[in-house]
């Protein structure tokens, strides 16, 4: 436990510099039992939470039993069998439920108190043999609490301000619920560059470094840690000198961002007078207040809504309220709502009746009941603004046709007259290969490069994907999509992460992209970049790049162009 400065190298995922106190999420340390009062009328939800923890615990135990049966440990299997029966002990369940219902105790506290009662009663018996059974009970209660605490442990909102959060891995809801004021950076062992957790961290401007050995850092018990999201360096117990250096860097970075911010009201127009539209990618209603420097919402990730509130999935009225509010906030600007995009590494809400296994539009068509709820809420809200509906992960024209059919049906049923445009995400290779077919049914295209890169190059989302967007195959696919869209007179927006990287802007413009959608925080720098390049040069760069053979070659040209356009003193981290 020395106070020496120690440096660790990780993989940079989300840019920025953070200086803060380390906080280890979900460490092995025993955590205090949370205690809070359940609001009146919410008791049944709490009871349900208890039952969920029980059924998760049961699944654990059954898995364990299976493993034991393979090992042939029959005694151990029997003990686990007893645990499974104990889990669903009707008396215990009744006692816990009673405490929740009658006294408004939270599940953790109710369970702990019930177990305590057993503890007292067990210890009264003089028979040592029975006293030992207490360990079984305690083990069990720890298991249940573990499942309850899962949510609690993941409650990032409880973290003290200015923390650098260390966690073995992150799930999207971790980053989604993290507030930038409390979490100054994330450091993980897994969660690579293209994971959804990483994506959200970047969108929120929270630095994230992955592939770091948690144990080595935790054992240092450092009090201060610096995270450099550009280089991937983690510095524990920095010396005064190091600290000063990073404080200066952090300040410079902030100044540059401020400068971009000040200029962001200027129209995004190239030096030779060509206007590019900038839209915002947002995931919450709160963000819709900051649309003044944009041309509207290019991507509203509706699935983010239920990360915090799974019930919303089946709540038409609440969805209607949110979409209406969103459209009103946009005051007439276009708002592209991408219908729930779940499946894959974005788990669907754990509510009854949801069939899992598929992703994107296929998931929605498979769970038509919920899809109809969302479409109805959207169509009803359409009267408040310029709504457009975007379908995720389209790979077949029938998915588009079926959705349009559903929309017509709902309109007839509800007597609605609106006809919001329906577009599709172009994010799997099949969609590009049939872009001409899709173009006949769709009203617009929106290119999502993150998934596209994954499926075209056969890489895992959590792998480090530096330089991949600059792969010739990806650039050719972009070109193909744009050509098809043009031929059919469809607007095409690019909303993948490539669109938030200043380095790629000239290439995208040169390829024929006239609409860019990116996270709010990237808009000032994207705007700056657009205003400092020319359409002519961009086209030349795109032509040159289309002839190139390797990602390295392409990246080099992009970097050179970026350096030339961005003066040294304002150059901030390029994304790639």
């Amino acid at each position, binding site marked *: 436990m020395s106070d020496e400065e120690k440096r660790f190298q990780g993989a940079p995922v989300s840019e920025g510099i953070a200086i803060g106190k380390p906080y280890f999420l979900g460490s092995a340390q025993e955590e205090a039992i949370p205690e809070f009062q359940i609001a009146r009328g919410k008791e049944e939800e709490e009871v349900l939470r208890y039952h969920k923890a029980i059924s998760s615990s049961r699944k654990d135990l059954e898995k364990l039993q299976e493993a034991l049966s393979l090992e042939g440990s029959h005694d151990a299997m029997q003990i686990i069998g007893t645990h499974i029966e104990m889990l669903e002990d009707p*008396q215990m369940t009744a006692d816990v439920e009673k405490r929740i219902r009658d006294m408004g105790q939270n599940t953790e506290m109710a369970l702990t108190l019930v177990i305590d009662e057993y503890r007292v009663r067990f210890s009264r018996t003089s028979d040592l*043999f029975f006293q030992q059974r207490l360990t079984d009970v305690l083990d069990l209660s720890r298991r249940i609490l573990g499942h309850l605490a899962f949510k609690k442990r993941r409650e990032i909102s409880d973290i003290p301000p200015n923390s650098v959060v260390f966690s073995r891995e992150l799930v999207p809801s971790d980053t989604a619920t993290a507030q930038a004021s409390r979490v100054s950076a994330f450091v993980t062992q897994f969660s690579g560059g293209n994971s959804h957790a990483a994506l959200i961290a970047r969108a929120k401007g929270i630095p994230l470094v992955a592939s770091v050995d948690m144990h080595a850092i935790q054992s240092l018990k450092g009090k201060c840690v610096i995270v450099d999201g550009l280089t991937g360096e983690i510095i524990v117990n920095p010396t005064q000198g190091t600290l000063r250096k990073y404080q200066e860097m952090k300040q410079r970075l902030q100044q540059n961002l401020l400068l971009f911010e000040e200029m962001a009201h200027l129209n995004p127009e190239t030096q030779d007078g060509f206007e590019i539209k900038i839209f915002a990618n947002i995931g919450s209603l709160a963000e819709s207040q900051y649309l003044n420097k944009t041309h509207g919402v290019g991507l509203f990730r509706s699935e983010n809504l239920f990360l915090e509130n799974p019930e919303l999935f089946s709540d038409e009225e609440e969805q209607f309220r949110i979409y209406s509010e969103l459209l009103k906030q946009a005051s007439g600007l276009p708002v592209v709502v991408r219908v729930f995009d779940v499946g894959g590494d974005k788990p669907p809400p754990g509510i009854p009746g949801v069939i899992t296994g598929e992703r994107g539009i296929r998931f929605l068509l498979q769970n038509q009941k919920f899809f109809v709820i969302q479409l109805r809420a959207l169509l009803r809200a359409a009267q408040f603004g310029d709504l457009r509906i975007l379908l995720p992960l389209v790979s077949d024209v029938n998915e588009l046709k079926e959705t349009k059919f559903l929309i017509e049906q709902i309109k007839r049923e509800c007597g609605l007259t609106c006809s919001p445009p329906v577009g599709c995400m172009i994010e799997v290779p099949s969609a590009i290969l049939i872009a001409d077919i899709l173009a006949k049914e769709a009203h617009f295209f929106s290119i999502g490069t993150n998934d596209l890169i994954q499926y075209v190059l056969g890489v895992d989302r959590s792998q480090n994907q530096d330089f991949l967007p600059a792969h010739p195959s990806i650039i050719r696919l972009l070109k193909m999509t744009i050509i098809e869209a043009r031929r059919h007179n469809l607007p095409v927006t690019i909303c993948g992460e490539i669109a938030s990287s200043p380095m790629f802007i000239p290439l995208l413009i040169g390829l024929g992209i006239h609409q860019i959608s990116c996270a709010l925080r990237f808009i000032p720098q994207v705007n700056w970049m657009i205003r400092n390049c020319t359409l002519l040069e961009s086209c030349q760069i795109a032509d040159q790049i289309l002839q190139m053979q390797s990602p390295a070659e392409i990246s080099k040209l992009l970097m050179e162009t970026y350096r030339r356009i961005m003066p040294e003193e304002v150059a901030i981290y390029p994304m790639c």
Partner: protein
Amino acid sequence: MKVKNSLGLHARPATMIAKLLQGTHSSVSFTYKKETINAKSIMSILVLAVSQHGQLLVTVDGLDAELVLRKLLDLFESQFGESDS
């Protein structure tokens, strides 16, 4: 009923009892040393800590009471399959 197995009503017999009673249409309670518990609850059976030769008062009330009682008797008689220990 009398508990015959040497270890008394520990976890395994308690599990067997609770399992036997699952899905029956009777309420079953055990009374031991003036304490009455729900016999479908393993935890409660364990808390009774009935040792060998302990005498239990068993109350069965319900549609299939007779059947349940007979099954319980058999189970106690079989010493929960622990007669050799």
